[in-house]
């Protein structure tokens, strides 16, 4: 069974300023009712939490998921477009320079990909923790 991605500690730390949070500790301390949402999120893999599809955190998590998947596809396409670059461009230093800058770009795009993946999980977890619906979330923040 897939497990929900664990939120990065800074986000949860901010949410629980007095609680030490590490990647290894179970990520959320849900109020009653939120547990179900987590279970269903976990059960659905990368899918939506059933109980929290309308809140801004969950929607933002969905966007992060889209961006994560889209970046995966873009990186595959980029690789594909450079296959066989060497044949037909032999002797041209531009081709070797292009090859040499690709690894840095690969690192950058991978870092963005990772960030989107971790945001997807973090944002969803916060949304789940709030057992969010808009009025409820607002109340939580107004405290």
């Amino acid at each position, binding site marked *: 069974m897939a497990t929900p991605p664990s939120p990065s500690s*800074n*986000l*949860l*730390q*901010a*949410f629980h*300023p007095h609680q030490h949070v590490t990647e290894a500790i179970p990520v959320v301390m849900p109020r009653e009712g939120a547990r179900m949402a987590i279970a269903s999120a976990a059960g659905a893999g990368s899918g939506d939490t059933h109980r929290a599809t309308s809140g*801004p*955190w969950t*929607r*933002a998590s969905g*966007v*992060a998921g*889209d*961006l994560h998947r*889209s*970046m995966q596809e*873009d990186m595959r*396409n*980029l690789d*594909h*477009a*450079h296959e*066989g*670059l060497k*044949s*037909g*461009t*032999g*002797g*041209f*230093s*531009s*081709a*070797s*320079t*292009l090859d*040499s*800058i690709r690894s*840095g*770009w690969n*690192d*950058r*795009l*991978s*870092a*963005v990909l990772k*960030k*989107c993946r971790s*945001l997807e999980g*973090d*944002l969803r977890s*916060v949304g789940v923790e709030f057992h969010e619906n*808009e009025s409820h*979330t*607002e109340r939580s*923040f*107004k405290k």
Partner: protein
Amino acid sequence: MVTIDELTRLDTSKFSTAAKSWGEISRKASAARQRVDYEMVAALSKREKGEAASAALSDLRQLSQNYQYIHTECGLVRTALDGLAADLAEPQRKLQQALDHAEQLKFTVRSNGSVEFPRVSFDQLPAPALQQPAHPDSAPPLTAATDPNAAKAQEIADRIASALREAGEIDRRYAEELGKLRTNGNLKNTDWADVARDLKSLQAVRGDSAKELAERKGKPPRENARWWGEKSKEEQERLASLFPGEIGNLDGIPAETRDRANRDYLPMLMDKLREDGSDDAETKLAGLRGLSEKLTARNDPPLLLLGVGDEGHGRAILSYGNPDTSKNVSAYVPGLGTRLDADFADGTVARAQQTASTARRYNASTASVVWLGYDAPITGTDQGWNNLDVMGEGRAKKGAPTYDRFLESIRATNGNEHPHVTAIGHSYGSLTVGKASQEPSGIPADDIIILGSPGVGVDKAEDLGVGKEHVFVGAADNDPVSWAPSKRDTILGTGGVLMGGALGGYVATELFGDDKNWFGTDPASKEFGAQRFKVNDGPAPLIHGDFMPAHSRYFDPSRDPESAKNIGLIVSGHSKEITRMAPR
């Protein structure tokens, strides 16, 4: 150095294919940035408060920056690779022609570029050669000058060498450019100064485009629109990614393209100002920060950045609503004391939003622009109260043709058959509008709204060239700027007493002291002959500690609902429904 074999075998489509994929990354990164800004940052910052939200927002802002960075830099990789493929095609073609020619002549081209040719035998030489005295032991050596094949071979060898040299030079240049487009996996590193340098360096390689764009600045917007429309989508993208500042500010380019280009240019411009660090740069930077915040927020109607720059007191043109698709477009020229600063980004831009939201109640197909495309006169304590700059016509005259061009541009790119264009001038901006009407081709507007005007430089509404029934005037009776010379004694008699101290002195001497401070007949007067619409009188000067409170309320539906509504009616094409008041 490239060899004959390498240039012959070169498959430029490998570079074009790679270019396409970088272009795709760039394009999608731009779309991704928008999603981060609108669907994540704006959505969370609007409702969510607290530490969880601010931690998430800081992550998301960094992500947005990265997408912007990827968009720009990968766009440059695309442009470099496209340029490389296109530029190498030419020497490759030249080489092929030389090789074909050699083959026709049955010459042999060696891999080092030398050309072997068959010696011409004696009986093929022209007659005079046979008439030379015979030397039985050896024939005279045939030189290039005497053997026609030798000359042909030399010419082919030269062509080959030149093609190889050219290809080598192109390769070297682009390798250098591509080498500058390196990055790493550190998301904190989005160095806009570096990006700007990359851009500049690649622009130099495409010097022909730079020159062309510089010339386009002086061409009529309609011609620019045609020129742009004839380009392929790829070429448009290439130009916009390589020259974002130029394309973003070029009249005749479609609004959405300008907006995208300017948004790309904005972080580079901000970084430049940050590095500059002077007071002037800081002031402009504060303005751009404010604009940047507005641009990444969720706006209804959508906000487009149609121009931005740091020349003079700074430039910024923004539109609430798309001026290319809207039936009604207004363009408001701010005046007195306006420059690119935090106040502009806040209050001045808000006036365009107020205009748009009010007008859209009467016709949803309306866009409202605020146009800071000129240096308005600056007032304020730092400039000294006796700043004659304010009262001179120079700034208005200088801004007039630029404003006309912008209005032309609206017409050139608008998709409606007969867009309804309203020119709005507030304060000194109304003089700019007035001056724009006096340019040789007139002002390309259907209606003109004059607000809080010190005069528009003409004595009659009909002199503005749109018909006096299309000239509308909003003048609050407590707005001292709107009072014409004929009334100055009255004002001095009452307001002058009211306004004590330094400000009173300024108003008395600068605004009311001298006829020549004023720019023609009071537009609210009967004599001027415009349509005066109803506005609130506004508070008297200084009663609320404000210098000229009644001067800045015309657009604001909460402070002067009647005036705001009338402006909205005119802009949306419903000027028949305005409420009127008697001329002065």
